[in-house]
């Protein structure tokens, strides 16, 4: 799967929940490449902004889209990576909010 194909697939899935991919297409392409790299390395699309433990069970909460995405978008308008954004920010290529990490530090490495 190419990064473009992945983006298309993820954009469709996000739209079902009313989310959008970030307006900066190059940023999204880079993120898609990272997701593909993680899939090749670990066997699952671990969040590219977090360090994978290389154990699918441990990383189950940070497989993209992570379980924190809904709360992050509701509070900050974007997920931690700024890959997914709310409808309100869908056209803003400079929208990169500071999103607090919700993941319990005791999880993962």
């Amino acid at each position, binding site marked *: 799967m190419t990064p473009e194909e992945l983006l298309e697939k993820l954009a469709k899935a996000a739209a079902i929940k009313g989310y959008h991919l970030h307006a900066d297409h190059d940023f999204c392409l880079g993120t898609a490449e*990272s997701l593909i790299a993680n899939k090749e390395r670990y066997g699952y699309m671990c969040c*590219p*902004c*977090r360090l994978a433990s290389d154990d699918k069970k441990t990383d189950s909460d940070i497989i993209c889209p992570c379980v924190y995405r809904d709360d992050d978008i509701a509070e900050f308008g974007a997920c931690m990576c700024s890959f997914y954004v709310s409808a309100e920010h869908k056209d803003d290529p400079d929208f990169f909010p500071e999103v607090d*990490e919700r*993941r319990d530090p005791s999880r993962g*490495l």
Partner: protein
Amino acid sequence: MDTIYLAAAAGVLALVIVAAMIMKKGKAAPEDPDEGSEKRECGDPELYELGMNPVSDKPIMYALTTCLHCKNTKKFLEENHYEVTVIHLDDYCDSDRANLMEKVRKYNPRGTFPVVLMPNGKVIVGFRKLLLEEAMKK
């Protein structure tokens, strides 16, 4: 007749030697689990040492190869003529990866990336242009 017996004995002996060699190889496998499998590269040892003991006159950045904010931070520092040493944690394996992550959490308990250690002691978490600019002035 003797020639036939000798040939048969030599054949049996050869089979025994081959079987012994196969068994020996089979027993050796658990001592070296990587034998025959593709070895994964596990990061630069010198950068690991720097990551564990981050003392440098250049900024040090703990990052991930997959993290776009890390790439943007590096680019921003370099555009401002700051040479930065980048330690990609996802290049490391097993205990090295865990040890480096433990180190990162000392500077940033949430464990997010990037974490930049400026030579003046400032710690900047995330791609924060204003904070980086401020830290570069001092």
